[in-house]
């Protein structure tokens, strides 16, 4: 499904929005060397983070769910580059990449994966549930599709306040089968809400391929009945993603209502750590890894732009150190205080006035 080849990059990212009127993203001039180096760094950071999370899981240091983002890095990194301060992001449980791209601290994310005190949710949320007010990351949500309505609400609040913020609402192609997605589309279109919906079409929702879960063959057009412009994007190309996201965000920010991007991407690992992924062939995964890898793609482009191997190597080394620090931190952080079990259920931990005393 993910089209191969460099020609995919650029103007073609918008080829499917013919049925609704919207500006097509401009042909990609490319990010340029400096920005592409930043993108490269962020993608490598996410990849190495996820690889390490997978290892810690294997060692029994992370329990429960752990959904790795490996393969999809170009999507969040490209979209994030199109945002400005104050824009909000919300996503599902496959959220580590989104948090790192938003600038959250890898140490705090990793410590949450190990369920420790210094994790973003102090060990209560885990891999799927983290939040950062500072970075405008509105969570990690475990009920498939629920974040789409919430992301729409973020946009409503922005419009109500009259600020020019955009909310980016990510969900999977599997989640695109949830009814509340379409209820949200209608509301967002009716109210012209500044929300960018990003479908990360990685081809599989757990073990179900998109052709077995969706009668719609072009998910970028799923908002068309409500007049929501949409485009398919090569989600393995961070420059194509950035260009498409920049155009879409500009549309939202200009008060023209929601926009829908379908990112054609791929997850290399199983759905979660417990998934043996028998529903697809090794060859299929291998082919994507060798022919379409987003990091390798950026690397080639950087070298063509004149970046030196040493420069890339330096980035990789710096990331390596950072990930090692995150892993060390996540293992050294103490277990949560047992008393934490009862805190933060509500804002006030049962105030005296809430209690009607018994005998």
């Amino acid at each position, binding site marked *: 499904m993910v089209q191969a080849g460099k020609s995919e990059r650029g103007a073609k990212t918008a080829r499917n929005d013919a049925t609704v009127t919207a500006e097509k993203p401009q042909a990609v001039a490319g990010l340029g060397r400096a920005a592409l180096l930043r993108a490269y760094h962020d993608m490598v950071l996410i990849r190495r983070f996820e690889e390490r999370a997978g290892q810690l899981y294997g060692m029994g240091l992370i329990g429960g769910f752990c959904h790795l983002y490996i393969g999809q890095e170009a999507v969040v990194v490209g979209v994030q580059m199109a945002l400005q301060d104050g824009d909000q992001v919300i996503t599902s449980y496959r959220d580590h990449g989104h948090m790192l791209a938003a600038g959250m601290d890898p140490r705090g994310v990793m410590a949450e994966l190990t369920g420790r005190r210094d994790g973003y949710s102090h060990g209560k*949320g*885990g891999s799927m549930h983290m939040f950062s007010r500072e970075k405008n990351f509105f969570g990690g949500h*475990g009920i498939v599709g629920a974040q789409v309505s919430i992301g729409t609400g973020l946009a409503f609040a922005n419009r109500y306040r009259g600020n020019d913020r955009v909310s980016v609402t990510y969900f999977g192609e599997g989640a695109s*089968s949830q009814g509340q997605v379409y209820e949200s589309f209608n509301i967002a279109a009716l109210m012209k809400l500044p929300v960018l919906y990003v479908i990360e079409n990685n081809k599989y*929702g757990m073990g*179900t391929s998109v052709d077995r879960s969706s009668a719609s063959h072009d998910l970028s057009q799923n908002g068309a009945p409500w007049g929501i412009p949409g485009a398919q994007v090569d989600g393995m190309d961070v420059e194509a993603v950035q260009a498409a996201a920049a155009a879409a965000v500009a549309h939202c920010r200009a008060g023209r209502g929601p926009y829908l991007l379908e990112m054609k991407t791929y997850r290399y690992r199983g759905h979660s750590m417990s998934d043996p992924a028998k529903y697809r062939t090794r060859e299929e995964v291998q082919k994507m890894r060798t022919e379409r890898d987003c990091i390798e793609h950026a690397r080639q482009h950087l070298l063509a732009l004149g970046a030196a191997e040493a420069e890339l190597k330096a980035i990789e080394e710096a990331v390596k150190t950072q990930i090692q620090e995150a892993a060390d931190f996540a293992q050294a952080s103490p277990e949560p205080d*047992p008393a934490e*079990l009862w805190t933060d*259920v509500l804002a006030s931990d049962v105030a005296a006035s809430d209690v009607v005393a018994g005998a």
Partner: protein
Amino acid sequence: MAAQEITYRDALRQALDDAMRDDETVVVIGEEVGRYGGAYGVTKDLIASYGEERLIDTPISEPAIIGAAVGAAMTGLRPVAELMYVDFLGLVMDQLANQAAKIRYMFGGQIGVPMVVRTQGGTGRSAGAQHSQSLEAWVMHTPGLRLAMPATAADAYHLLRHALTLPDPVVFIEHKALYARKERTDLAAPVAPWGQATIRRAGSDVTLVTYSRMVFTALEAAAALAERGIAAEVIDLRTLNPLDMATVAASVRRTGRAVVVTESCLTGGVAAELAARIGEECFDYLEDPVIRIAGEDVPIPVSPALESAAIPQPPVIISVVQRMLRR
């Protein structure tokens, strides 16, 4: 058939297999139930025997899945709709509580909804706040829904088989921490009938009333109490609708003391209902107030240490019973 080692998971699978073999109106519908064999492996390989027509993989669209099952059941099919996590009741309570549960009554008894919603809940896997709940009180609070919560493999088999003969909607809640639990049993041997509680351990000092995974927690506590000279009786309710108060009341009248143990949280819960009924039906026999030991009134945290502190563990039961008996 002789007794054999079987897991809770395989017993459920066997029940579906046998029901589908015997009754071609039984169809299984849900996310990942077919080719993948179920998120927890309960429907593994059934597709090889019954094909895609009867093991229907759906998109992630729970309200439509349950709604479609209701519609199909109204025509006499027996859908087994799998809800991957009981937490997703949040999405489907309308179809269950406002449609499935009401149809027989509001249409004057002319039509019923013979469907089963198979789902699983509970803690034990660090699955976090949105994948670890015990929501049986929501179901129990809705007249018109049957509710089964098996603890053992034998019950998993027989209660599911029975559920698939009933004329009304059944919510069948499995426990995620029990799937791999093995027991030696003969699935062909009869168990207590549907709707009847079972005494898992006899005792004369106190009655522990529970169901689902907490049966094993209570049994562990009862074994420890026995070493301290206290004989605790453990009752496994098996179904919460119907609720077998006769067995519970008979036991409490004998022991004079009752402790209700649930994994689901305390306030407004199943334990409260049981405690109230025991109080009403056994008042003259009670030596002590009925005590509820239930999950804490908190969302379920991911940290394993916090997670296990959120639900009843044997030491709490032991100390509560000791205090009750002043020993």
